[in-house]
């Protein structure tokens, strides 16, 4: 993980390289959650600045950097969407995920797999999963919005996540 080591050493060029590699992913997630380019740019700036200020928050032994940045970005964007203070410290986020997102080609293949899995899901399941992930809605809020029972929403969300996992286990 030489890029992260470079950032830990205060190397600005390492930060630029890391930005070039992951900014599209971070910006896409922020924009998907917030729906507004100015706010998405702010989250993009905030996420990379947090990494610059506290690179030790990312533990390369406990996850890959692309997945970690994706989760950090989503959490910060949801906090912004719901007008609340950040709820978790970035150092507390641990992401254990199979695809190696450092390589652009690998990342692209992983994206295709995930999108394919979402397309293949029943509409209600995909919708529940996306409302929880990209809108930060609780199962109670999703149930109120869709008129479905609470238990059904919970089960759909879990089954949706497990369906994504199976795509990478196959």
């Amino acid at each position, binding site marked *: 993980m030489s890029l992260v080591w470079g950032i830990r050493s205060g190397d600005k060029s390492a930060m630029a390289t890391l930005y070039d590699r992951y900014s599209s992913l971070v910006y896409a997630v922020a924009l998907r959650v917030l729906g507004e380019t100015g706010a998405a740019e702010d989250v993009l700036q905030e996420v990379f600045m947090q990494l610059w200020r506290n690179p030790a928050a990312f533990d390369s032994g406990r*996850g890959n950097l692309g997945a970690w940045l994706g989760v950090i970005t989503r959490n910060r964007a949801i906090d912004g969407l719901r007008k609340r203070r950040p709820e978790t410290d970035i150092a507390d986020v641990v992401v254990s995920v199979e695809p190696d997102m450092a390589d652009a080609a690998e990342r692209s293949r992983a994206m295709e797999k995930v999108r394919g899995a979402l397309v293949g899901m029943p509409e209600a399941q995909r919708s529940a999963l996306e409302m929880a992930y990209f809108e930060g809605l609780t199962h109670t809020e999703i149930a109120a919005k869709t008129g479905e029972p609470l238990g059904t929403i919970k089960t759909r969300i879990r089954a949706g996540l497990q369906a994504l996992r199976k795509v990478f286990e196959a």
Partner: protein
Amino acid sequence: MSAHQQFADDLALLALGTLQGDERVALEKHMEGCPACRRELERLRGDTALLALSASGPKPPQRSRERLLKAIAQEPRAKKIPARRSSSNFMPWLAAVAFLLLAGFFWRQSDRLAQRVAQLQDESVQQQAQLERAREVVSTLTSTDAMRVTLVAAQTPPQPQGKAIYVRERASLIFLASNLVSLPPQKAYELWLIPTNGAPIPAGVFKPDARGSATVIQPPLPAGVEAKAFAITIEPEQGSATPTMPIVMMGTGE
């Protein structure tokens, strides 16, 4: 399903960060003792990270890159890690200094602990001695072998009175007095054990308090001396080796 079935759905919500209230509290409590659920939560968090990959859209504008690089240029890192080359000479010194500081710290801690242990041992010895003394007092007062002597003055009231309780085998003597007349500053009362054979033995010098009361608790006495009587004289306040006449109070065994 590797996680417990009843928590399976809530684990997914916790991974998404949307589980709230009592359900979250109950699940977190359960996970404290459930490695299987903790592992499943980590896997589910990985699954949620995959969802981020489904987001697509335009690339961020160029100004975002410039904004970031400008910001990091203006914010030098407070904890910059030195390059390996320069650190290689410096690190052993840092390690040595850290070791010395730690050694000093632990030495001081150890020294303080040793002092504290010694202090506690002293206190323990003192408390043990006090306890033994108290036991001895009670034993003397309640002993059936004790010789009980009441000493009275021949004068009219207020009547000075003294009571001596003596156990010969243990050379243990308790003396209680009341209504004693106060004495000049350089004078004190002295209690004498009058043995059946031999000269009177000094058994403690004392001065009465403002109410005329006084006690002598276990003065040093030779063991096994049979007492014929107890007497009190007035002596210099440092005490005398032999009684100075007259005897102001005296009593024999009851």
